[in-house]
């Protein structure tokens, strides 16, 4: 009997398998079964996809079959790396696996023809934010001497309440999946966006087909003929993804841009304040009995 989406049992089995697998993969005090847990969790994901495969109509998918196959691949890479982010025992490994999560989700955006977002993800997340994380991991590591074998910290190899967290998280996941595959949901209302030709005529009057072709010709005058033919296949009457996102951002959300700028400024000031806070470098040992002198100073400052 094929598993259909009217019957959410496949989703529940898959969620239970994923939860069990992730629990086995979690770093625990006694034994960690990483490989077995990974296999069980992957089987859960496979069961979920097999169960939802029956409802697919490849003729009316909305994106090409190739793109949809790539969606499976990128999703598998992203989910597997995400599981490794939260089960790795070294923070550096977590950060590196997170880079793979970012790259996989950028691939997912490419399958959805959201090219600008894909590259913004790679540049901002993979390039900027993750490098910041790497710097902090280096700054805040308990660097031993050259003979230090680099033991894992005890707080990295003991998860805190993994059972309860996984149970709660996968309960949420079961609810989300049941809703997102709910077959009785209302169909997609007709999209109310204007066709590209209207936009081009109203907002970008200089973007005629002839002007675009002339610009392309001017830019690739000395490029080899194969590229030339390839670029000429581009349809000048359609807006590219970058143009679409840019138009929407600057026409419909000017206030949002201003607010984003203010948020960045505030966080910049906050980061400077945090960086200027004086903390002496060799404070009290970890099981803290007496109040720290800096804390006392802060309290005095606060009460003044």
């Amino acid at each position, binding site marked *: 009997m094929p598993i259909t989406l009217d019957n959410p049992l496949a989703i529940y089995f898959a969620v239970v398998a994923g939860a069990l697998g992730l629990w086995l993969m979690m770093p625990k005090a006694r034994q960690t079964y990483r490989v077995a847990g990974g296999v069980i969790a992957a089987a859960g994901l496979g069961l979920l996809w097999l169960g939802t495969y029956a409802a697919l109509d490849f003729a009316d998918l909305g994106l090409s079959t190739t793109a949809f196959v790539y969606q499976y691949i990128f999703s598998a890479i992203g989910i597997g790396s995400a599981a490794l982010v939260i089960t790795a025992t070294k923070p550096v490994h*977590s950060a590196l696996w997170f880079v793979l999560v970012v790259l996989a989700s950028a691939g997912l955006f490419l399958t959805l*023809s959201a090219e600008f977002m894909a590259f913004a993800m790679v540049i901002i997340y993979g390039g900027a934010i993750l490098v910041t994380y790497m710097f902090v991991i280096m700054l805040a590591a308990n660097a031993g001497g050259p003979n230090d074998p680099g033991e894992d910290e005890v*707080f990295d190899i003991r998860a805190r309440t993994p059972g309860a967290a996984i149970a709660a998280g996968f309960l949420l996941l079961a609810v989300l999946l049941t809703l997102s595959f709910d077959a009785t949901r209302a169909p997609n209302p007709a999209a109310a966006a204007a066709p590209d030709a209207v936009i081009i005529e*109203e907002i970008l009057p200089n973007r005629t087909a002839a002007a675009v072709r002339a610009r392309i010709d001017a830019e690739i005058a000395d490029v080899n003929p194969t590229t030339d033919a390839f670029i000429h296949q581009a349809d000048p009457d359609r807006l590219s993804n970058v143009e*679409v996102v840019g138009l929407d*951002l600057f026409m*419909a959300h000017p206030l949002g841009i201003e607010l984003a700028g203010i948020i960045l400024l505030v*966080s910049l000031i906050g*980061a400077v304040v945090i960086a200027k806070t004086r*903390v002496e470098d060799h404070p009290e040992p970890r099981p803290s009995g007496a109040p720290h002198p800096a804390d006392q100073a802060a309290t005095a400052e606060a009460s003044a």
Partner: protein
Amino acid sequence: MIGALPPMPALAVALSEAALGHFLTTGAILFVLGLIGFVTRRNLIVMFLCTEMMFQGVVVSLIAFSVYHGNVTGQTFVIFVLTIAAAEAALALGLVVMLFRRRRTLDAEAWATLHD
């Protein structure tokens, strides 16, 4: 540009509902894994890494919905999500470095009791 807004552009592809479900699944799984990681990990840096992973799940869902509804605002909103993520990373990592210099550990449990 005060007054009536000009028409908003449409997107090239429009997802079917079953295909949308697959992208939402990936987004939900990424979000839940980030949530579990935030609760279970005790390393401050990894905890904040897990919040970034929750952002990733939300972003995947946003873009999938944007393509499904043929409305580009979902993709535009991702830019603001990225802004918040960058601001959060800068502040959180600054705090982590400061906390580390106080107690010489990245263990979140070291800050479990807020005395004085």
